[in-house]
């Protein structure tokens, strides 16, 4: 259970990295990536996955 970032749609704004409560998102090779091992889809913390809620390009989706 984790989210991923569709690199082709990502604008590399970094809004997701700042919101992730698990520090699962990092900048690698020109784009942001989600570490599936750390991602909890924000369950137990927030109503919705924070990366998807803040993303202007709607490119954070279930893996």
């Amino acid at each position, binding site marked *: 259970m984790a989210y991923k970032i569709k690199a082709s749609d990502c604008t590399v*704004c*970094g*809004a997701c990295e*700042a919101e992730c409560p698990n520090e699962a998102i990092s900048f690698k090779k020109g784009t942001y990536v989600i570490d599936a091992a750390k991602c909890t889809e924000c369950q137990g913390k927030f109503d*919705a996955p924070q990366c998807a*809620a803040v993303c202007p390009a709607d490119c954070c989706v279930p893996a």
Partner: protein
Amino acid sequence: MNVISLDSIFALGEMKSQPAPEASGCTTSSCGSSDGPSDMAPEVWEKVKNHPCYSEEAHHYYARMHVAVAPACNIQCNYCNRKYDCANESRPGVVSEKLTADQAVRKVLAVAAEIPQLSVVGIAGPGDSLAAGAKNTLNTFDQLSQLAPDIKLCLSTNGLALPDYVHRLKATNIDHVTITINMVDPEVGQHIYPWIFHNHKRYTGIEASRILHERQMLGLEMLQEAGILAKINSVMIPGINDEHLIDVNREVKKRGAFLHNIMPLISDAAHGTHFGLTGQRGPTAQELKALQDKCEGDMKLMRHCRQCRADAVGLLGEDRGSEFTAEKVMLMDVDLDGAGFEKRETYREHVESERATRHASKAAAIAEVAHIAGEKPILVAVATKGGERINEHFGHAKEFQIYEVTAKGAKFVGHRRVDLYCEGGSGDEDGLETIINAINDCVAVFVAKIGGCPSKSLEAAGIEPVDSYAFEYIEESALAYYASYTERLGSGAIHEKIGADASIRQGAYTARRA
């Protein structure tokens, strides 16, 4: 490196210090400038006099730069799509490269060493300067306030996160903040903002606009309390918030905003924005001016905004960003100990003495035309590259500044871009026709020089080309012209031009120096 030559700014080339003049004799009512020292409290004038975005007068002398350290945003606007970046395009929200805080600091010091006119560093995105915890914005400001304390720091924001940071901004000595406020009624807002992200949640529809509105008003009130000058930017969107901006103007004025800047919507399908794709049009030049005139009461209205990129560098209306890319800045020998401070100081002293003389000279020019008080105002277009002088060749002008002239003075009321479209735009468009459309509401165009061919076309369009004031001051020349125009009109030598409107260039492009 292509430095702006000071001689090109001051056509007469006097960089020597001049004796400080006596009191200028410019009184509140007689000074033609809409934002001179006589129009505001001394402590406010001190804050704005060197800020090109807060003082119309300052924008003739001082340069600004934006550093693009804030790519993340916390709201979506229907006029914005940051996926689109053409390096030749100039509009807010667009940048060529995003910078880390350290890269931004290096870039500022490199520019400050090269351009003594630099007085302001702003953070305007390309997202929101206070989104994502404002980390990069605050880091950049903290470093710059240590390394280049003579340079003013400012930022612009949509206001959603502003209440959380006002105290921190105050502590960092930031005394200018711009909030973009497009509505004070969520019913209107829902057509502009599809969603916001606030308190870990995405809100949509009317609720999103209600929260945004409340946060913007709270932020503005907190700025007022903290003694930080607030400028309000509003995007005029015909059919959505055009008349509503009068309400916005009233509400922000009530809460102590210093300056209101009403800008035309930039909308083009090629930008991929919601408004661009749905065919929402921007206002015409006269629609914009009519709304600005309605809002201009006891509050200042900004008319000289160039809606610049989030990484623009230089005087307003020019962009030298391409000379200072991260790659080029890395190769420059940047002096980290306040590079160029002395040059900037000398330039500022020069501007101060120049200005005092100017205020007196404007007052004298107004006295000269007192006998024609009450005549109809006219609009004139001016080709200038700064220093409040008519010092640009017609064919080299990337924009024309528009002045409204009456016997009370020549007032700056706007600018019209005429630079060429980049590839992808309609590049085959006739350049001269573009210029005539852009300044068609003017009766004359003041230039340093102009060729015979364009002169004939301008005359045919009812725009008199005037090169007899070459290298003279704009306002004094405009008043002298107004006297001659009024006299010729009275004698029947010329006829009044009625009902001509002008078009605002959509998605206009960056002014680049040849």
